[in-house]
């Protein structure tokens, strides 16, 4: 049935998928000299270093995230509530900012090496290597695993720990035999997110000169001006993501992981002795290195440069960031709301799958989307000029391009929050409203909208935070002379003015911390 609602969904899906399709289509063309050269020389290094990062960051975030979730869920000790909150904080620090900070702290002329030299040690070690990137990325990304797995632990704990204890199992056995397997979807799902982010990461790999696929895509496109090879690399990155996702999907299999939530109070075990101190050590590490040290660094240099940099220009940049993030979050939530509503009122096969298609942009590396959108809008502009609609580049390099990129990239966040929230509202309410004289649109405004305003607000915050921290798309697609907090930090860092980035990093962190705190307090992450 093709009605106005479904047509809107289809057109939106078509537009959002177009950049990705263009990339794949372009990559299938004939090989260029550059591509042959790339294959002979650096391609294997691009792939292997990307793989090494994906696997090692996956492993480290697993240890940090699952370990932290386990300790804070099943044990009681002093400051446990502090850690529950503090462990989520590194989420507010973008990976590349963390990268800049540690490259500065461990730089030759800086704190760490000066201290080492003052001790009479002449040894110098260069921090710009793949191992540092592994550790920094893990510190920045483990909160995904921690937050998602903790939520799953909490749920299975209250439902199953008491029944299992009554069957005479030991707590250790219950954890490994029941709770860990039940949390497998949460663990695999969050690790998949981490791995996707790792493949997609641009700022830190570029700055630390690690030859992974994402910076390679940009360099081939903008440095070598070879679009074919760039899209070829992009498709390889896409394939990697698809492999990660299919492993996750395969792992989930057919087993049902649904738990009937019967909230029963479970007594947490008290941690004592050496176990307690080891736990403090383990839990403090990510908080100190993932948040505290970066925060101190940022605070110190923000203070130092505040007088120099806190001017009208800073205000403009701050406003740009806020405006772009809130506008894209608003548009995404509105569109996702309408699309979700459409598959609710017309639950056809196609409509049910449409949210999966619309989520593809989130799984694609930012670089892939960036070049897809450049191709799409250059072609459209060419067409517009040829047909005398405009004489100048109309879409390329406009703010609209950037906005569109954010929508493609982060639509999945909107769709997911909207879909899970629609599921919780009985469809009979919609029918009741219609039999009382309201059409679909009025019903949407009078019934579903007020009932979902909390969920829509949380979705808005999630998209807002993601957009605020986004780097590669913003960097490549922003209009001329348009700066956001992230692009400014990036430009300064690459001009070796690391300390000046502090004030912009502070902007990002402070703005992210407010919604993040709301989310943690309301237990919505």
């Amino acid at each position: 049935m093709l009605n106005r609602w479904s047509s809107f969904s289809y057109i939106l899906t078509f537009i959002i998928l177009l950049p990705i399709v263009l990339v794949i289509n372009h990559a299938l063309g004939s090989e260029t000299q550059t591509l042959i050269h790339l294959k002979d020389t650096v391609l294997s290094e691009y792939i292997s270093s990307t793989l090494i990062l994906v696997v090692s960051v996956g492993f480290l975030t697993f240890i940090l995230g699952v370990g932290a979730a386990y300790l804070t869920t099943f044990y009681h000790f002093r400051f446990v509530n502090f850690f529950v909150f503090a462990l989520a904080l590194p989420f507010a620090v973008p990976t590349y900012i963390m990268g800049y900070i540690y490259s500065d702290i461990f730089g030759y002329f800086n704190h760490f090496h000066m201290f080492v030299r003052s001790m009479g040690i002449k040894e110098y070690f260069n921090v710009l290597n793949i191992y540092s990137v592994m550790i920094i990325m893990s510190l920045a990304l483990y909160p995904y695993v921690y937050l998602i797995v903790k939520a799953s632990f909490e749920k299975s704990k209250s439902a199953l720990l008491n029944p299992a204890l009554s069957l005479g199992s030991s707590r250790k056995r219950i954890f490994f035999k029941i709770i860990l397997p039940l949390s497998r979807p949460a663990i695999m799902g969050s690790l998949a997110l981490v791995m996707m982010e790792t493949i997609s990461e641009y700022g830190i790999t570029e700055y630390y000169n690690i030859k992974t696929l994402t910076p390679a895509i940009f360099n081939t496109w903008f440095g070598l001006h070879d679009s074919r090879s760039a899209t070829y690399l992009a498709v390889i990155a896409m394939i990697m993501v698809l492999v990660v996702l299919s492993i996750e999907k395969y792992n989930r299999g057919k087993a049902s992981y649904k738990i009937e939530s019967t909230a029963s109070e479970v007594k947490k075990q008290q941690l004592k002795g050496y176990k307690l101190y080891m736990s403090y050590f383990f839990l403090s590490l990510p908080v100190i290195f993932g948040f505290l040290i970066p925060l101190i660094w940022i605070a110190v240099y923000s203070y130092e440069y505040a007088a120099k940099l806190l001017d009208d220009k800073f205000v403009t940049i701050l406003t740009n960031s806020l405006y772009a993030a809130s506008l894209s979050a608003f548009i995404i939530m509105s569109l996702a709301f309408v699309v979700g509503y459409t598959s609710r009122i017309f639950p056809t096969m196609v409509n049910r799958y449409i949210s999966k298609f619309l989520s593809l942009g989130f799984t694609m590396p930012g670089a892939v989307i960036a070049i897809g959108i450049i191709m799409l809008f250059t072609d459209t502009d060419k067409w517009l000029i040829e047909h005398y609609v405009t004489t100048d580049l109309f879409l390329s390099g406009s703010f609209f391009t950037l906005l569109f990129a954010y929508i493609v990239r982060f639509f999945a966040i909107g769709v997911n929050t909207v879909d899970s929230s629609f599921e919780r509202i009985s469809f009979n309410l919609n029918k009741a409203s219609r039999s009382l004289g309201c059409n679909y649109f009025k019903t949407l405004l009078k019934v579903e909208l007020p009932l979902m305003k909390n969920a829509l607000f949380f979705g808005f915050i999630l998209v807002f935070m993601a957009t605020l921290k986004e780097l590669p798309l913003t960097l490549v697609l922003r209009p001329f002379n348009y700066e956001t907090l992230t692009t400014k930090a990036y430009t300064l860092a690459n001009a070796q003015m690391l300390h000046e980035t502090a004030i912009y990093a502070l902007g990002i962190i402070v703005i992210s911390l407010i919604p993040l705190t709301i989310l943690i307090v309301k237990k919505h992450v």
Partner: protein
Amino acid sequence: MILELKQLNKRFDKPVLKDIDLEIEQGQIISILGKSGSGKSTLLNIIAGFEKANSGSLHINGQLIFDKKKNIEPQDRNIGFVFQNYALFPHLTVEGNLLFGVKNKKDKTLVKALLEMVDLEGYEKKYPHELSGGEQQRISIARVLATDPDIILLDEPFSSVDTLLKTQIEKDLLMIIKKSRKTAIFVTHDPKEAMAISDKIAFLENSEIVQYDTPQNIYYQPRSNAVASFFGVANFIEEQCYRLNQITLHKQEGMYKAQVDHVIFRGEYYELHIKVNVDQKQYPFVVFDYDDFHKEDAFYISLLK
């Protein structure tokens, strides 16, 4: 004729409704009865407009509502729908719920009159979660009455009420509908409920209406064995159905001789599973025994018709 369904067909993967014909007079209360999966809720959804039939036509008050070419949307059909779980809007007060479908949002006298009708005066500012199940149901029927619909559809309105309260709520609801002089169609799977409230019952079996008649006729003259057994104990000789109150047991010689096969104690009575001899043939009967026939080796039964 307020509602007229002609040759209505609906299939999902297999046929759900086959050639449904149904005519309802103004002010009648009709029950659609059948086992779960017999298509009765689908029929109600089609009348309301939530589902589209594959063929057939629907007229309300002589006006064409649905056929191959025309399909009036639910919001324009002027049909009220009472849902199984009441579907009250949780974000609105009782007053907000009652006035949801009403043009004049400040009509306090209407709210008052409706609340009086359902015996819930003073409930204007309460929220649905503050009401008991029975109260929620009365509000949901009042919300429907507020828009003055031509027909009220009720989808298993008693299924989520516990048995103790059921009789009272059934009585209340019936009173409200009778008072409003509205035409109503109930969907139910409970034969006792259907007989108690309806002017006519439509029995759905294998996607078809096998009988559409008054409760008395459906009870005493069931058109099929399935209909007969659905409404209670049914005993057959040849194709003729005999209800419990059409059979008397006695020790003196009577119409037919009977032997006890086995006995089940049910508290107020014994359920006798007996064999009745008619013209050299034996027929299995179930009868209730309030005296002590279950001890007899053989006794006689008489059939009233």
